């Protein structure tokens, strides 16, 4: 067993999952691959298995937050040191796993590295104009709150170390978790940074954020961000080992 894990959430991604798993094996051979089949009704799980991934089938659709957290729980239980999230739809290029890992390991105080499609000008797929406006708003808010420049708070291409795995296994936002997860890291005084990546247009399936949902998305995440400001200390359940700055160092 490797010490590194690639978490691939997939919901009805039969058209892209084989390539995604094979690319991870090819470009990041040090990583075990776990596909979280989030209640798919197509052949996602069987194709992922025949491509060589470990597959966890959720009995019904939990949404991206619940699916990804399943991966972090698996990583925590099996003692993985590093976990990287790669979407099952082919948007995230597994070639960047090496760069993410190098960045994470270069600085021992770093707990999370995110791949940002806006750090480098001009290359790759950058999603529609309206979605970019939404991302810009969240980027501004998150930068303001965390006090460092965050350009792509909605990117799901991110790598965490052991402390991040334990945090996310215990507590992870439900719907549209990416923005809140960054703020959670900040609230727990864990450090994260971004590296430039190019993303690809999705190869199959539909985005978790459909055309009818952007208003709910914006309001829900804004509410979560706003209320997060009033959480003075990280919410840690009784009996949990608190994650704090000491653990981070």
């Amino acid at each position, binding site marked *: 067993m490797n010490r590194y894990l690639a978490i691939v959430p997939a919901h009805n991604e039969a058209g892209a999952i084989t390539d995604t798993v094979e690319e991870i094996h090819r470009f990041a051979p040090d990583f075990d691959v776990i596909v979280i089949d989030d209640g798919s009704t197509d052949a996602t799980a069987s194709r992922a298995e025949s491509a060589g991934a470990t597959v966890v089938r959720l009995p*019904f659709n939990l949404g991206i937050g619940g699916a990804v957290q399943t991966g972090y729980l698996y990583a925590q239980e099996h003692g993985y040191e590093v976990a990287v999230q790669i979407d099952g739809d082919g948007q995230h290029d597994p070639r960047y796993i090496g760069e993410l890992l190098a960045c994470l390991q270069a600085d021992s105080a770093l707990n999370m590295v995110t791949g940002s499609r806006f750090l480098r000008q001009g290359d790759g797929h950058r999603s529609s104009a309206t979605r970019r406006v939404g991302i810009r708003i969240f980027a501004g808010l998150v930068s303001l709150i965390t006090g460092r420049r965050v350009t792509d708070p909605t990117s799901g291409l991110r790598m965490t170390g052991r402390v991040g795995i334990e945090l996310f296994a215990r507590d992870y936002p439900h719907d549209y978790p990416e923005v809140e997860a960054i703020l959670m890291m900040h609230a727990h005084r864990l450090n994260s940074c971004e590296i430039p990546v190019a993303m690809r247009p999705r190869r199959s399936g539909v985005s978790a954020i459909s055309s009818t949902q952007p208003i709910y998305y914006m*309001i829900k995440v804004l*509410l979560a961000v706003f209320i997060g400001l009033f*959480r003075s200390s990280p*919410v840690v359940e009784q009996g949990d080992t608190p994650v704090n700055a000491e653990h981070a160092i």
Partner: protein
Amino acid sequence: MGTQRIIAIAISGGMLLLILELVRRKRLMERYALLWLFSTLLLLVLSLWSGLLNSLASALGVSYPPSALFAVAFGVVLVLLVHFSLAVSHLSDQNKVLAQRLGILQRQVQEQNEHLSTLAQGDALKDAPLGEGARARDREQLTPTS
């Protein structure tokens, strides 16, 4: 300012703060808080802004404006109840799926355990004929049949 208005403002304002506090403590998920926030904000606006409530009352044909506030509150409660019925239906459906999966998993674990124990017995039997047979022969030699 009428007493009813003060009471209406206090109740809707208090509800708003309660909902926000519950979300802050992670006792209430944002998904379910949004409708509550919308409802309490609507009631708060109506109780603060008496002009809006008065024109709403005359539009509804209600002569006593605070009654219009009750009507709106009743409508809000109805919407919330339907919302919860939907949520409960969704949950019981998911619960059913979980119970079915668990039942099938339990059956599979049981079958695998039985399979394992028959395998273990098979191994034991392979050794047994020699050992048991030899011991039986020993017994026969020691205690001759009468």
